[in-house]
């Protein structure tokens, strides 16, 4: 998609979407960071689907699990900050997509699968994870950080320095 072709109202909408998703990530991150002892262990062990073995492997070894937990908590937090502030927006949204894809694949709502973790809705293949993932794809391709976000300032500063490289 060629940027700069979005209308003002379209861009405002995308920025709002970005901030909302960022908020969600950030809270998921900080609430885990500040919990007494959060771990993805239970979630990983519950994994079903084609990649179940991979997720169980992540939880199998205490040290590996500790790393996965740290990556998860800090990843969510930093992605959240990036999205809200529009800072390294592309990196943040791309990483967000990867993270959500992992969540999705860990417990995918495929036909015939059911879970002992209670879900708050009814899903068939598409669940909220997948929708949030698609929304992040929109953020990724519209580069809204350049319109409203710290990327605009970062970009501006870089431009100043690398003027010859530009245009």
């Amino acid at each position, binding site marked *: 998609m060629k940027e700069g072709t*979005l209308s003002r109202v379209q861009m405002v909408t995308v920025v709002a979407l970005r901030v909302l998703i960022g908020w969600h990530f950030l809270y998921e991150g900080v609430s885990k960071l500040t919990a007494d002892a959060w771990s993805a262990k239970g979630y990983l062990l519950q994994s079903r689907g084609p990649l179940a073995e991979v997720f169980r492997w992540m939880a199998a070894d205490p040290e590996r699990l500790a790393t996965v937990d740290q990556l998860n908590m800090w990843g969510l937090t930093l992605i959240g900050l990036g999205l809200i502030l529009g800072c390294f927006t592309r990196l943040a949204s791309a990483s967000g997509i990867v993270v959500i894809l992992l969540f999705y694949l860990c417990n995918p709502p495929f036909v015939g699968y059911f879970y002992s973790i209670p879900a708050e809705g009814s899903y068939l293949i598409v669940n909220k994870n997948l929708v949030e993932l698609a929304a992040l794809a929109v953020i990724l391709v519209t580069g809204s950080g350049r319109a409203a*976000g710290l990327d605009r300032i970062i*970009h501006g500063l870089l431009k100043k320095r690398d003027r010859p490289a530009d245009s």
Partner: protein
Amino acid sequence: MAHDDEKDQDGGPGSGLGGKKLDRRDVLLGLSTVPALGLFGEAWRKQRQYDQAQKEAAAEDAPPPPADLEEINVALLGSGAQGQVLLDSMLRIPGLRFRAVCDIWTEYNQKRAVRILKKYKFDVNGYEDHREMLDKEKDLDAVVIATPDFWHAPHTVDCLEAGKHVYCEKEMSNTLEGAQRMVHAARETGKLLQIGHQRRSHPRYLHSYEKLLQEAQLLGRIVTVNGQWNRAVSPDLGWPERYTIPDARLKQYGFKSMPQFRNWRWYKGLGGGPIVDLGSHQIDIYNWFLGANPSHVIASGGLDYHDPATHEWYDTVMTVYEFETAKGPARAYYQTQTTNGSQGYYETFMGDQGTLVISESEAANSGSVYRDPNAPAWDEWVRRGYISAPKLQEQGQKDEDAVLDVRESVSPDEHRIPVVLRDPYHQPHLQNFFDAIRGTATLHCPPEVGYETAVTVLKVNEAIEAKERLSFRPEEFEV
């Protein structure tokens, strides 16, 4: 990333052309979403306040500690999985001052416990050797022991002889000889010894025993009992490689290797396998609720599933005890297996007037009594709040086409036991121990009681080996 961004768009709409210097508009738009972060911060602060208020409200339910509460100086001996659980409970009990942690896994379990206690502003010292701790920590009043079973006797005896009160985890000891030494040491020193069968202090078990069985006699005459602890297969316990204990130290404390140190409960001479580890909790309740020790036991068990290279004790045990109770004979079945966790753990007492199903868990089988149709009405006990009003058994579930036989008994009404434990499971039992030290309570599980349970439970392993029905002599339960 900056480079990546370089290939990015030339700013959003209205941002002008690339190469333009930053202007006011760029800065404003650049910072335009920062307030959202402020909002987030504010919402988060509110949420934290709310959580905090909830916690404080929950804490207020407990009666405030009396102002003149005398502090008890406590040490934790063995800060593994269970030591940690006990510590979490003790941190909720007012009037304790932690002074020391002793654990041979200095670089891991000991460090963790010390760190937690320091966080709670306790000035604690860490020790590897319990005798060194007893030598140096002169002010200790009590030691809470959660080391592997084969260490219970030496640790308990040394602590008692050093003049400390002791809370020692179940199983009291892996040998009767060790358990006897513990009883003697408690008697000779006059110090308190509580054995960690925590159900003895659980309000739902106390309510069931005192109110439902003794006072209301809801079950009539108990003739059969059954119970189980089923546990799903779980991998052997591992450890972070960099915290491996040097061989010399393992040997010094009676362990052959790291895997054995971590999975001691499966090894002969160290633990007693699942029947002792899990079964002793519940078989202890059989003796208590039936008001008797068993007269005979038969048992079948084996290492049916797990790898014999790393497991010595039986992974599957089924056993039947025979009792002579004050009201007549009773038989009690118990099973434990570690290959399938279905139905978890519970105890069921069945009398000619009703059935009691109970467990320590708040999640499943937490506590119900079922009135047998021929029993006298229980309205009085419902009115007094001993049991809830009956919940009628579901009719709707039945298959329309299924044919019910007239000989089938009518299913009895279910009454819930209205007692919920909101504290961690071990807290009431620890509280009972500290209250007893202060002289305001008597121990719920003194060493003589722990000993009777040890005799009852350890005999199962013997019966499996002997492949025959073994009897208990009444004097076997005495020390």
